[in-house]
């Protein structure tokens, strides 16, 4: 059985640790990963907790397949806590090597509560758990922290997950990074770690991880390896996700200059094709996964010579086209710096793009930026802005380290028009004006703007719907996508490998059953996906959000039609169509018109104990 059946609790205030058994009913009902993590978070927190207070527990979760040789799932972990960026439930996943160590150390999850008096790191060596002084790691990047800890503990095979300076300084876009390039990226989980004075988690696990049916399991793993050589993963193995640059540009969906334009004249120069030809030096993989997708790029010459980073589409887009920057060398350096300070590679670009838009429109001036010329396309300013935000230097760095939503509140005036976020989370790389199913999908995501909560861009990009408008029928597409992705993120399968589950939910249920020995059908696992989405929604309601009021789109998406000559010219999301879309989605979900899960729906998905929360909310809305 691939669950360790144990959860480690670490109280950072007292230094006390405790191991408690994993409730196996929860392990079935919530699968593992984000599902189980969110359920545990709800049970271990008080309503309205401040995300950056000691009372907000921080969960490092593994999945049911973590620690096994399951490609792309054997190596994974998820972090769940309340997000300081969105005030909703926060969750993010990462792969690499770190996750499997937690399971091998004998834990399904590690829970950090309280706050350490001084900066520390947790050293978890199988049963032994210690909090060690980390003052000497202050200001170090996640990579430097990783290297220093392995050096001082004297074992190269120890795996480390750490924050950088941005996390220490409570930037709300701070991430957590393991294994050099792998990030718990979205939602400011790095700031939660920083608020606890927890610099890093270092783990060495030496125990066996067993599966229930080893023969069937390894046979299936063999099949997955074969499928990974096929068409389902071609994109990730060859050009990588930067292939999207030219694809989205052709669709007028490559958001440019902070969602001003939908096409980028410099697209060719920052394309996946150009990147691979001129910069990618090696493509490597995570533990247990032979698919290999990590495109490691090195700048061979010029002012950014030697700069090295792992380049995926999202960060390339946010630091490139979105800032009007058409130089890959500067983009590689920008991504390197985001990793260095430990900031979400999507959010950071969107934050800088907002600053540029504010600057171009006179909302902030040279006085505010201490002379930094934040014009679109100025690559040197992009790099310098990231430095300042990562270190919270000056008014500018300090303000934008708060993310777009709060920066807009601090600046006031028209700044909100340039803040491209949903629920506080910065938009990822899809122009929602020309991908309107995606617009609806992103707006209802429980962790804020996110392309990976439902993959709602897919029907738009494939052309199976009219992507320039919203109408009834889109709700079902989003709901199906969300429930499926909740399953994927609770098994913590890498989404790059979702295509190799040829039989979809049936394969995933089988994977779970073969590993854990707990019977699971496709119907049960998708019901778990639905349960998890409702759970997340109710958590957000308990925390004061989670209603229609929060399911909104940024100003530009609703008010600024695509201006340039292109296939998407004039496109924007019309409020009345968006309302139709929202109501359609709520109807399919079995929620009220205000977006609140009904007591009947909660009972249907086995969340009876959460009924009082929604009843109270529905009653207060009626008043």
């Amino acid at each position, binding site marked *: 059985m691939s669950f360790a059946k144990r959860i480690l609790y670490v109280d950072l205030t007292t230094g006390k640790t405790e191991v408690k058994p994993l409730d196996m009913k929860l392990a079935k009902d919530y699968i593992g990963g984000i599902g189980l993590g969110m359920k545990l978070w709800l049970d271990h927190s008080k309503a309205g907790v401040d995300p950056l207070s000691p009372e907000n527990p921080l969960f490092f979760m593994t999945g049911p397949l973590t620690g096994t040789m399951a490609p792309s799932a054997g190596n994974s972990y998820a972090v769940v806590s309340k997000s300081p960026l969105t005030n909703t439930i926060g969750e993010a996943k990462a792969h690499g090597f770190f996750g499997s160590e937690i399971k091998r150390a004998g834990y399904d999850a590690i829970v950090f509560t309280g706050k350490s008096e001084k900066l520390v790191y947790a050293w978890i060596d199988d049963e032994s758990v210690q909090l060690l002084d980390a003052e000497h790691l202050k200001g170090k990047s996640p990579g430097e922290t990783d290297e220093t800890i392995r050096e001082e503990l004297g074992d190269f095979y120890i795996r480390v997950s750490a924050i950088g300076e941005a996390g220490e300084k409570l930037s709300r876009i701070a991430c957590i990074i393991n294994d050099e390039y792998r990030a718990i990226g979205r939602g400011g989980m790095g700031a939660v770690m920083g608020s606890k004075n927890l610099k890093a988690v270092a783990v060495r696990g*030496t125990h066996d991880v067993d599966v229930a049916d080893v023969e069937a399991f390894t046979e299936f793993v063999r099949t997955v390896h074969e499928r990974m*050589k096929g068409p389902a993963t071609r994109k990730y193995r060859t050009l990588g996700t930067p292939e999207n640059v030219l694809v989205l540009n052709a669709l007028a969906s490559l958001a440019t200059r902070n969602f001003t334009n939908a096409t980028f004249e410099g697209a060719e120069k920052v394309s996946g094709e150009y990147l691979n030809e001129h910069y990618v030096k090696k493509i490597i*993989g995570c*533990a247990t996964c*032979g698919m*290999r997708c990590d495109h490691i790029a090195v700048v061979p010459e010029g002012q950014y010579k030697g700069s090295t980073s792992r380049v995926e589409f999202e960060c390339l887009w946010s630091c490139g086209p979105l800032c009007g920057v058409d130089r890959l060398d500067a983009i590689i350096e920008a991504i390197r710096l985001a990793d260095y300070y430990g900031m979400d590679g999507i959010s950071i670009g969107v934050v800088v793009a907002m600053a540029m838009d504010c600057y171009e429109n006179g909302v902030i001036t040279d006085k505010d930026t201490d002379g930094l010329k934040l014009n679109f396309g100025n690559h040197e300013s992009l790099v310098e802005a990231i430095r300042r935000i990562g270190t919270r230097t000056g008014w500018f760095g300090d303000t934008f380290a708060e993310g777009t939503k709060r920066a807009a509140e601090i600046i006031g005036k028209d700044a909100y028009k340039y803040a491209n976020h949903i629920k506080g989370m910065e938009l990822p790389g899809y122009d929602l004006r020309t991908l309107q199913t995606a617009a609806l999908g992103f707006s209802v995501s429980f962790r804020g703007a996110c392309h990976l909560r439902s993959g709602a861009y897919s029907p738009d990009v494939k052309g199976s719907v009219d992507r320039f408008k919203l109408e009834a029928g889109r709700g079902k597409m989003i709901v199906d996508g969300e429930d499926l992705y909740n399953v994927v993120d609770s098994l913590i399968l890498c989404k790059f490998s979702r295509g190799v589950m040829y039989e979809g939910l049936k394969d995933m249920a089988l994977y779970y059953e073969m590993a854990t020995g707990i019977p699971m059908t496709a119907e049960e696992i998708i019901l778990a996906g639905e349960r998890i989405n409702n759970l997340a929604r109710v958590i957000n309601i308990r925390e004061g959000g989670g209603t229609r009021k929060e399911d909104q789109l940024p100003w530009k998406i609703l008010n600024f039609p695509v201006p340039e000559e292109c296939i998407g010219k004039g496109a924007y999301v019309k409020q009345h169509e968006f309302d139709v879309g929202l109501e359609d989605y709520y109807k399919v979900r079995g929620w009220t018109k205000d977006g609140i899960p009904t007591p009947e729906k909660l009972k249907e998905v086995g969340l009876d104990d959460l009924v009082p929360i929604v009843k109270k909310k529905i009653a207060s809305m009626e008043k």
Partner: protein
Amino acid sequence: MPTIHEKKFVSGDPAKCIGCCVCEYACSLKHEKTFNPTKSRIRAIRLNSFVNLAVSCRLCEDSPCVAACPRDALRQSDENGTILIDEDKCNGCGWCIEACDYGAIQLHPETKKVFVCDLCDGEPQCVEWCPEEALDFTTKDVLSQKARRTAVKKLFQDALKGE
């Protein structure tokens, strides 16, 4: 005993290795019926993104590990050149570990005796599983041939394209 020319061992190609450790999982599955890289006879190393390689026993001639054992717990197989360990004699003292230049012989986390690649009865599972075909079960002679061919191909890539 097979000669040095005939002895087949598991060799990793750093140009192909991506550091995924699938070999480690395959090895622990085969020998220990579980998933546990710390019980693998082959270990992958990632020095940085660009330098990845899996290392296991190279079946040295006059093996230093055998010579180093003060308790005669190690001997080299006459049949295939692998290192055979007498677990009754081994007390985990680690002289063999110090003697090995490649870190190929290790201390087992549970038995506290040393363990090393046994070539899986001629069908190394790491080679079988490696998704990148970065591992070869081969001889030194074949490896040198292969390297020569690759080098010459590189030198004359234009001529080869013109064919």
